[in-house]
């Protein structure tokens, strides 16, 4: 069952259509939500350590809703990518966040699917990670390299080359995978 949920969630991440409203990803404890909130630098919010522009994209960003609740978005719509890239342009501003609130294993967190400046800005699909990654790596945003960024990211390639896919060294990979 867990594998089925995983495959479904990954499929949605890859193939989700262009509708501008959150859709189910079949996750346990998910609820489709849309709410207004202020984008905050989470570390700043908690500790008072507040650099300019929410850390310029290097820090996790949160959403403080009108009840004062700090919501942590873990995920955007791009496979294996987070939400900070989608929210940094809205640092300290109010947005409408659209996605899934998920409660599982005793924790509640969000996956962001769409965002816009509150109250009526144009919707932005939470997949801008891909374009930003493509720009940093000098490839087209619609290229296969960008779509499968996780296989092509220089940092990832370097880590996997040194640590192996299992993290136990390349010899362990060869033994396990028969390569």
């Amino acid at each position, binding site marked *: 069952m867990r594998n089925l949920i995983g495959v479904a969630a990954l499929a949605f991440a890859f193939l989700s259509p262009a509708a501008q409203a959150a859709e189910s990803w079949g996750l346990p404890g998910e609820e489709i939500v849309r709410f207004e909130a202020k984008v905050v630098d989470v570390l700043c919010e908690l500790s008072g350590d507040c650099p300019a522009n929410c850390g310029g994209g290097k820090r996790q960003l949160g959403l403080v809703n009108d009840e004062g609740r700090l919501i942590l978005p873990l995920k955007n719509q791009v496979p294996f990518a987070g939400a900070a890239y989608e929210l940094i342009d809205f640092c300290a501003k109010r947005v409408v966040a659209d996605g899934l609130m*998920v409660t599982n294993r005793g924790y*509640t967190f969000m996956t962001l699917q769409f965002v816009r400046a509150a109250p009526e800005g144009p919707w932005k699909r939470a997949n801008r990670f891909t374009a930003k990654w493509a720009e940093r790596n000098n490839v087209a945003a619609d290229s296969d390299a960008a779509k499968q960024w996780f296989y092509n990211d220089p940092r990832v390639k370097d880590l996997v080359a040194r640590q192996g896919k299992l993290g136990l060294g390349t010899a362990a990979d060869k033994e396990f995978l028969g390569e």
Partner: protein
Amino acid sequence: MRTMALAGFAAVALSTAAQAAPPERVQVTGEIIDSWCYLTEIMYPEGSAHHQCAIWCAAGGIPVGIKGDDGKVYMVLKLGADSTSVANPGILEIQSHKVKVEADLYVRDGINYLTIAQVVNDEGIVNLTHDEYGIQPFGE
């Protein structure tokens, strides 16, 4: 009017106090994990079987966590002097490791957040799960 001003001042003061509660210095022992895969259970999310995926997710900016031996999940917001928590290079290096950290713990709205002062002990990857679960999620 003065009453309203005082009420406003008190509300601001209370709000600031609520948001800036002092942290608790703690030691946490556990495995560095990808928070998304672990909390959603979309695949097997621990140890060597999930190491490559955990690197992908950390490099992609998903919050990295520690699955504590106490059963709690802690989100890492800082490692040493480096307050980078989106694709932090130092955290990428120790993804999936069993570590003991000394950190400040902030708890807000049900989520545990850590700013790690130092990694006290690093055992490397000791959770060998690949024989049972293969390589997550694509098998290669």
